[in-house]
């Protein structure tokens, strides 16, 4: 790998935006990872949301699709130099991880909310891989826009 590239890990409920050619990566279970890429302005970001909507007021908004995802989009445009017209999205994760307690089907709820917001914001989803019952290891190359996705127990697939 090119020594000038940084590998940046994104935690749960976190957002990282970077210039090409850096790499953004994360692990996803029921959470959804949203990749935004602007190939013209060479900037990309990865948001790792855990819940569809914010209910309280005292925690990080990037934990939630709403308002985290609109915030992500505005940060890409306002501070990272991306253009709404050239941006596209890829989404991953949303696995079914829980059989009991209140987190049942949270993966599905997360995906529905993410898709709703991206549609409302006019950002095209060019590809997605969601669902299942195993974790996702995703690696986003901000140079090419490729996302290498390895679902636990299966080979790498490039999206």
């Amino acid at each position, binding site marked *: 790998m090119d020594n000038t590239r940084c590998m940046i*890990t*994104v*935690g*749960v*409920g*976190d957002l990282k935006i970077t210039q090409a050619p850096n790499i953004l*990566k*994360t*692990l*996803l*279970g*029921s*959470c959804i990872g949203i990749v935004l890429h602007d190939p013209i302005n060479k900037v990309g970001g990865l948001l790792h949301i*855990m*819940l569809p909507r914010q209910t*309280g007021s005292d*925690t*990080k908004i990037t*934990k939630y699709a709403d308002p985290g995802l609109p915030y992500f989009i505005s940060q890409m445009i306002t501070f990272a130099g991306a253009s709404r017209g050239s941006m596209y999205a890829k989404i991953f994760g949303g696995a079914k*991880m*829980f*059989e*009991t*307690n*209140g*987190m049942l089907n949270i993966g599905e709820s997360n995906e529905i909310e993410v898709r709703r917001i991206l549609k409302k914001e006019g950002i095209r989803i060019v590809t997605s891989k969601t669902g299942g019952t*195993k*974790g*996702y*290891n995703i690696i986003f190359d901000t140079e090419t826009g490729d996302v290498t996705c390895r679902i*636990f127990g299966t080979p790498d697939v490039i999206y």
Partner: protein
Amino acid sequence: MDITNDRLKALEIIAKLSIDNASRVLSKSLKTGAKISLSKLYVADFCEITEKMNDDLREMAGVLVNFKGNVGCQLLFMLPLEDSLILTDLFLRHRIGTQKEFDDFTESTVQEVGNIIASHISNTLVSNFNAVLVPQPPQTYNDYAGVIFSNLVLEQGSTHDKLLLLETIFEICNTELRCYLFLLPELTTFGKLLDSIGVPP
């Protein structure tokens, strides 16, 4: 997260008492010693800890246990997938190397070891501190370490940015096995327990 040093210290003592009991129980289950090689209680930033764990791509077998009662807590017991085969052999009193692949029995062994540890931890809290605490049926996982860990912290992480985490590593004597045990106490309910035993806020 607002917690005084006195309360942290008290929680650490309570947690370590429970973990000591868990290690004795683990030894008895496996008919071999289970040595605690690390046990620490700390306040973790939710995003930072999950960022660190998201770099952990080891394939693990894990079991998550929620508890029902007047004290909120979650427990995660996990170990590398290949080590769960050894754990199965120990549990079934087979020669090590008998279990060749991860199957229903391996998953069930990890589940049961988690259940036994969780039950004995709750037994300690009930008998020593008058808590009302019973484990729920465990949830098993076979996945990346970081994903399994996220499942542990997800519920509390949804409403808190800081988490109180107890991390313990067990080494199983006469083997290369290392098992990880995480306890995630819910601070408000544990605060009430500390109130009841006279630890000042």
